């Protein structure tokens, strides 16, 4: 029960997945989607463990007043707010597009409708259609175009289209009526958090690499041995060959196909030597992965049990 059943489960799921690779016939062709769905479900349940662990570790930190316990409070608040709004509201962004026609003098709304009707679009300049579809309306075929336009906010400032901005355009017609297109993006709190917190934090964290790559190069590229020299040399050439500065050093053309310059050596290194090295790593690693996978399926490799 403790070991036998897991081994059986591993064997069967592994074998079913292998079989469906070669048999495109029913019922095997349905297995892939089915099992992938199951995996998603289990992952969702497993996530509960992670969140509980995160809460537990931080609550302990707060209750025992460990070093830096204040930040655990921030963490827990951020976590609970995101989960609360995220689970109740959802995390997607809803887009509603409406056209508003109103009198610019009295600010009285004349009519508003969803931004699809071709009749209204004709009067609009700079409308950029995104897609068009044929729809039957009262027995009549009609082409409905959906599109986007430049944004002009109320104070008359043109705002460039970006993902997070509402898109608007106001056109003043002769009779003082104003047609305004409003693409309202009613983002949920979860989506707002993603856009304004997580995305910025992620890309900033990613950008730290620019600093670290410089310091790593300074520290590690020392010609301590022949291998280190090769590492250093090829990095040196590729770095110079990649940027325009590398061209300044000129080139020696021996033959149409043999040109000695930083950019051309860079291309050669990347295309041939790098390919060879990467290929060997890929081959070796893949064989290792296959071997371990086979051992898992036949029940020889059991690290995932986490002990006996």
């Amino acid at each position, binding site marked *: 029960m403790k070991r036998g059943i897991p081994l059986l489960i591993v064997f069967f799921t592994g074998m079913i997945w292998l079989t469906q690779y070669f048999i495109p016939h029913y*019922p095997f062709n349905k297995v892939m989607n089915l099992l992938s769905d199951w995996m998603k479900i289990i992952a969702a349940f497993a996530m509960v463990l992670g969140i509980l662990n995160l809460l537990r570790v931080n609550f302990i930190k707060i209750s025992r007043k460990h070093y830096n316990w204040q930040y655990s409070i921030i963490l827990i608040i951020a976590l609970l707010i995101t989960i609360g709004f995220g689970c109740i509201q959802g995390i997607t962004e809803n887009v509603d597009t409406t056209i508003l026609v109103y009198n610019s003098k009295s600010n009285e709304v004349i009519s508003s409708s969803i931004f699809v009707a071709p009749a209204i679009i004709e009067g609009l300049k700079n409308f950029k259609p995104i897609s068009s579809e044929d729809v039957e309306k009262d027995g009549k075929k009609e082409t409905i175009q959906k599109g986007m336009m430049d944004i002009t906010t109320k104070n008359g400032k043109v705002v460039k289209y970006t993902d997070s901005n509402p898109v608007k355009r106001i056109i003043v017609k002769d009779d003082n009526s104003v047609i305004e297109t409003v693409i309202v993006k009613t983002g949920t709190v979860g989506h707002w958090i993603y856009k304004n917190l997580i995305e910025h934090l992620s890309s900033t964290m990613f950008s730290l690499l620019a600093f670290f790559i410089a310091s790593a190069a300074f520290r590690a*590229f020392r010609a301590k041995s022949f291998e280190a020299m090769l590492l250093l040399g090829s990095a040196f050439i590729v770095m110079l060959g990649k940027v325009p500065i590398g061209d300044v050093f000129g080139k020696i053309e021996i033959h149409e196909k043999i040109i000695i310059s930083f950019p051309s050596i860079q291309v050669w290194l990347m295309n041939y030597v790098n390919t060879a090295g990467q290929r060997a790593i890929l081959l070796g*690693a893949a064989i290792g992965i296959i071997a371990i996978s086979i*051992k898992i399926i036949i029940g020889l490799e059991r690290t995932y049990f*986490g002990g006996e």
Partner: protein
Amino acid sequence: MSSKRLKITILCILVMVFIFGSMNVWAAAEVNQDRRGPLAWLKNFVKATFNTSEPWIDWSKSNLFVAFFVIAFIIIYYIFIAQSGKDIYIRKIAGLAAIDDAVGRATEMGRPILYISGIMDMEDIQTLAGIGILGHVAQKAAEYETPIIVPCSRSMVMSTSQEVVKEAFIRVGRPDAYDRDSVKYITDDQFGFAAGVDGIMVRERPAATFYLGTFYAESLILAETGHHVGAIQIAGTAMPSQLPFFITACDYTLIGEELFAASAYISRDPQMIGGLIGQDMVKMLCFVIILIGSFCATTISVIYKQVPSKLVLNAYPVELSYGSSKMVSVTVNESGKTFEKNLPLKLKFSIPEKYNKVINLLDSFGKKIEPVEIKKDFAFYNVAIDVGKKKSFKEILFKVQESKVKEAAEFDINFQIENMDKKDYSVALKTKIEGGKSRKYSYLKSFINFFDIKK
């Protein structure tokens, strides 16, 4: 409730769920959604199972199938051989010897160890390899009474790592020293995890850090911070894109397959060692296959040095060197989605006249097609193909009699496609080209083509 009764109850639930489920599963996947119930299900099941239009075996993957069985056989064979208990040589892996030293150093300095088994989930094999080595490191840490911190990026990895570390502490006889919170979940987010681990590193100042598993761009963020706090760093990954950073920033790096070999090396378990030898044998086989393949390719290249080196067809560069063949398929691009479709087509194309003399064009039935007109320097052809009706109709054969071609040639065959159902389709054709002489040495070609993965 006693544990035995609990087990039985759970087993019963499982069996019931399985019975209910299996009755409904295929029915749910069926097209006929309105009719449910055992009878409808049975009908659907039988109908779908004996549906003859779907093939039972995907022959295009036969090369993978053969490769899989050869590899599986070799590995399992050597696992059984190794059980006989012969002493087997395994070369040293530099990074592994350093593991014990690193743990020892941490003990001396009285600082903790940090261990990360990648940022991927349990279905990733590198993660499993990483967790395998974690068992060893945790045991050493337990022996030396050095605290170990294991931040995890996935919940499942966290819960397995907890078990592994706990087990290691039990093995050395100090279960009381195990701190459950030493293995902690941070976040699934790649850079969120990196931020969290960086924080842990600068605050806890580990004396040894281990990065063994799948890593992406965060590799250098972790390794540089680890170096900054003065830790001995041991890394290992099979991600070719991240290895350069580990090599430069860490003290020892397990390159690619060394990561997988490590757990066998540590455990010294005959079965594991056997698997390792099996892997070596597979690599040896690959080595030999590459040599033979290159030999074949060289021979073909020498024989065919007169053949046009390149034939440009509708601007898809199709290489004719050693007469490699690409299957024909009609891919339809309809409003952005690409899929295979039964599409009646009429095809018009032209080829330069001088090449018309040396090329025989055959249709799918192997019948020769004659040009409808020869204008200026071009020969024009008309072909009608109905892709859907017959499977064999999926290809047009262009036969090249290269013996008459004196020089290297490069020319275009221009396709024009008329849609009979007048819808917006873009049709891409790939073309099979066969050289006349190639048949003579077809075994050389077929060796190479065996490894061609048809997409």
